[in-house]
């Protein structure tokens, strides 16, 4: 049985929430979790001052309702499974290295990006956002998967080192710039950067596997046309190594 956090009332301002899921959080009791200290606009406070908790520890956590003022949620997450049944703030999953962070709503800027002062974004795990994201999604990501059910803001995959970002909606402007080895999968629309070069149109087997996982495990809106479709492969960014790629779905 998972632990469920429910907000007592809407938060007054942005809160640095990285302490919630720091370290070995998966074995904490609800009381221990509620004792963790967060940093808000008016100073430090206990999680229990803003949330109630129910359930028992099993490595999974559910946050009910809107969490759009929780910033850095899941930053550095190394394992376990976290579900946000609402929106999340900026830096959701920033620097995460394992586990799964599922956001049923939308996320802010730098989802899966690098934590402050870090050269790398997420280095592993799965960040699933059913809504849309703000700017710099997956910036400097080193490994891992980011799937966005809606659209992304500008600069998605900026300076990506490796890893995968899938957008079911539109990629924002300036996607994939300075991408080294990362993969950007576009199922909606994308403005092709001038520093990428077209390669071919084909059906990558690994992408089919990935789509099956996104559909079956996370309930994302993968269609048969996505599974059986072909994808235009663009190599880039040639302003960098040129070993990255954009896979753009050839919609019928």
């Amino acid at each position, binding site marked *: 049985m998972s632990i469920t956090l429910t907000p007592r009332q809407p938060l007054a301002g942005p809160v640095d929430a990285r302490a919630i899921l720091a370290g070995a959080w998966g074995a904490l009791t609800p009381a221990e979790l509620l004792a963790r200290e967060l940093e808000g606009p008016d100073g430090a406070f206990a999680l229990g001052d803003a949330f109630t908790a129910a359930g028992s520890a099993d490595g999974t956590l559910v946050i009910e309702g809107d969490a759009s003022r929780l910033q850095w949620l899941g930053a550095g997450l190394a394992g376990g499974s976290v579900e946000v049944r609402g929106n999340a703030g900026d830096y959701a999953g920033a620097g995460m290295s394992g586990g799964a962070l599922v956001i049923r709503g939308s996320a802010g800027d730098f989802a899966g990006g690098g934590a402050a002062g870090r050269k790398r974004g997420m280095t592993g795990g799965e960040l699933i956002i059913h809504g849309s994201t703000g700017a710099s999604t997956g910036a400097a990501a080193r490994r*891992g998967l980011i799937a966005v059910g809606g659209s992304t803001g500008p600069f998605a995959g900026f300076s990506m080192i490796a890893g995968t970002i899938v957008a079911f909606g539109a990629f924002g402007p300036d996607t994939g710039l300075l991408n080294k080895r990362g993969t950007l999968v576009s199922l909606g629309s994308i403005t092709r950067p001038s520093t990428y070069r077209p390669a071919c149109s084909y059906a990558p087997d690994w992408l089919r596997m990935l789509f099956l996982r996104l559909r079956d495990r996370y309930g994302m809106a993968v269609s048969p046309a996505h599974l059986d479709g072909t994808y235009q492969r663009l190599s880039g960014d040639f302003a960098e190594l040129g070993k990255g790629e954009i896979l753009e779905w050839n919609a019928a």
Partner: protein
Amino acid sequence: MKIRGVEIVDTFAEAFTMRSARIIITAVSPRWAREAALKLTGFATSVIGCKCEAGIERVLEPSETPDGRPGVSILLMVMAKDELGKRLIERIGQTVLTCPTTACFDGLPDAPDRVRVGAGLRFFGDGFQSSKVIGGRRYWRIPVMEGEFLVQEDFGMVKCVGGGNFLILARDASSALAAAEAAVDRIAGTTGVILPFPGGVVRSGSKVGARTSKTMIASTNDAYCPTLRAVTTSDLPPGVNSVLEIVLNGLDADAISGAMRVGIDAACIEGVLAITAGNYGGKLGPHHFHLRKLMEGVTA
């Protein structure tokens, strides 16, 4: 014990511990998955001469495969665990990598012992290869002229059992073949079992060593050759003029036991005089399959 008039000899099959991988091949259609599987399992009847033993375990529906395409499951077995990776890289590299539309996956994901396969094959990509981690498993994308070949980085390795067997002693060659075909048809598709010989049947059962050579590790099983009845110490009952053997390898002893039971039952047809099994007196293999114990309750 008799089953439909066929004598079940009071003896046992003696089998050995081996190491196995399960290979899942998928392709755009069943045809191409099968083509790759047939090539991969070719010339893999016995470790004596082929370095490994392999066979098709069963055909997989798209819903059973990692990429949702039609597939085939294969078991490949070796005697020494450090041999498995070599054989997998050789065979997958030559027969699956080369085959249109295929991808290749590990079918033993829970096995703690792992052997690196895609991690070796990736070098065919000459630096253009890349990898993806999906669900915690790494897969290599190797660029090929058709597009990309996808192969899992490592494969599970488990202890298994090789050399389960039974011999069909028949009045004539056609009866022996009919019984062997019936047995193979009944065993086919059994999870965890392969029949590595041609069509699942062996006509040239062997004994350890040779009378005429110190270097040969196996030679014809003269005690069961009908043509030698008058010139050797024959184990053939009167009236037997043809013998065929079914050899079974399995992921565990239970899988072999179950397959032997249904196979022997199917082989008990008109023209078959007895079913027996090959062993070495119980001194070589730790797994013993006693025929009469296996067939308890099957008398109709």
